[in-house]
């Protein structure tokens, strides 16, 4: 159980709001498609803030017209990884951007163990910090 005001990992665009319904997710996907973004589904069992590369659930969906395509992929990912973190990411390949334009979490484990802060005393009063993901104390695939 995390102690921040939401009680959960607050990455992504909408973590402070009530869980998005599938209809609400579809509306966001539609917004991205209208902007010309490519959506992708990614999942992980280690939501460490510096863990950039979540696993890709298939390729980014370029040239898609209908949000239903993204929602199908999302349902498949949820079915395969019901207790993992899953996020939807929209990619904008415009010159000068070429990066993520939207990102939000659409699936979480029932209980989120969060992170510990390890302080290593160094020279003088200097500290070196390590943010430790409790989930990774267990091996892959046995974390939630």
């Amino acid at each position, binding site marked *: 159980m*995390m*102690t*921040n*005001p*939401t009680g959960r*990992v*607050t*990455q992504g*665009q*909408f*973590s*402070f*709001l*009530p869980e*998005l319904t599938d209809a*609400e997710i579809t*509306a*966001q996907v539609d*917004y991205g498609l209208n902007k010309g973004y490519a959506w992708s589904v990614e999942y992980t069992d280690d*939501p*460490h*803030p*510096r863990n*950039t590369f979540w696993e890709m659930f298939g390729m980014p969906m370029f040239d898609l017209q209908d949000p239903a395509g993204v929602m199908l992929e999302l349902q498949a990912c949820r079915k395969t990884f019901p207790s993992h973190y899953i996020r939807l*990411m*929209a990619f904008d390949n415009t*010159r*000068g*951007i*070429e*990066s*993520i*334009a*939207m*990102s*939000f979490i659409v699936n979480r484990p029932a209980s989120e163990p*969060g*992170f*510990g*802060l390890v*302080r290593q005393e160094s020279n003088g*009063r*200097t*500290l*070196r*910090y390590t*943010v*430790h993901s409790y989930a990774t104390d267990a091996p892959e695939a046995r974390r939630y």
Partner: protein
Amino acid sequence: MNKPNEPGATEITDKKKRYSAGVLKYRQMGYWNADYVPKDTDVICLFRITPQDGVDEIEAAAAVAGESSTATWTVVWTDRLTASDSYRAKAYKVEAVPGNPGQWFAWIAYDIILFEEGSIANLTASVIGNVFGFKPLKALRLEDMRLPFAYVKTFKGPPTGLIVERERLDKFGRPLLGATTKPKLGLSGRNYGRVVYEGLKGGLDFMKDDENINSQPFMRWRDRYLYVMDAVNKASAATGEVKGSYLNVTAATMEDMYERAEFAKELGSVIIMIDLVIGYTAIQSISNWARKHDMILHLHRAGHGTYTRQKTHGVSFRVIAKWMRLAGVDHIHAGTIVGKLEGDPLTTQGYYNVCRDSFTRQDLPRGVYFDQDWADLRKVMPVASGGIHAGQMHQLLDYLGDDVVLQFGGGTIGHPMGIQSGAIANRVALEAMIMARNEGRDYLAEGPDILRKAAQSCTPLKQALDTWGEISFNYASTDTSDYVATPSLA
């Protein structure tokens, strides 16, 4: 509208007459040429000139061109040792400022050979050097500059840029949220760190040192950095997000600044901060350091109001923003429109566009006079700070867009239920507004309803709206566009 060349008003082409000892009019010396067509490689400045009574506008424009390039008050024969025509800036157009009798816009072109590669100090020593104190002018203002592609390419620009900043922070698709730690003076390092921790854990992405927090008797810099970084890391572990706090490294000397920046790096900070008052050379130096050490560089525009605010004299902030993008900062305070500090909506949007565009188009209502190709230079994240609160979220999003840091200082720390509650209110208001906008709602008109609905399941937001919902700062702006009526905020 451009004035044609008149007899006696143009360059003397007879070399013997031109270089006889004595005093000539500037336009006779070659600083005015109505037929000049600027080259793609020229730097072009647009000045607003207010000549003294009896000084005609063409002579005044030629004088500005002369005094910001090669001229001195009298003819010198040593000009003949140079290809002097290259070094003379050329005023080529003057136009009356709409609705302001006695004021003129003057366009002046400078050959690229006049400027050292990659040096803001050199560029500014020319174009705002001696000329601003020139007696024949009552007042002079640098309104805008066109920087040629070739010259832009000699600058490294922002060390991180707003795209890579978002990737490092793992935050996309919404403005970033920040707050300035308050009170700005008097907190000890320990108390200061408390405010940082509460704000970040509550949901903000950044906390920030204020411009005059350096290393005073009540809180020395090392103490501040140590406590702040404990707060940052603790908040990061509590939320699973990357967090930061702008550690102000502004100091008396570059050596002190490097020492402070090194310590910030050693403690794992993602960002450091400088004040504009350190000067252009110091900014470029610390920008190099930031590039070398993967550090985001935040610039507070402390002091700019002394020369940017009045319309008749000084340097427009859009020019400062252009210089800072070249010099290489990642964040720059660029106004809030709705907050407590000066900022006409369209003019402020002009500053934002200069920071964030790949190619800025001429846009007179926003005070942008030139097309500007940014030559793939990275983009600066504008920062909106000063007197803003959650109840204005729809307006802020509409005016400023997604790529901005919204800084709610008082609007976080002044929350009746505490700092975390203030942070929650801001984050919930922001996420609710982004979601509504993406769903296609008319979020500007429905903004208050969207906020009230979000507040039904978020008591801290309800309390924030009850406390500040009606607060606004509606004063007439002093720095406004000359080309359209300024819309009011009401």
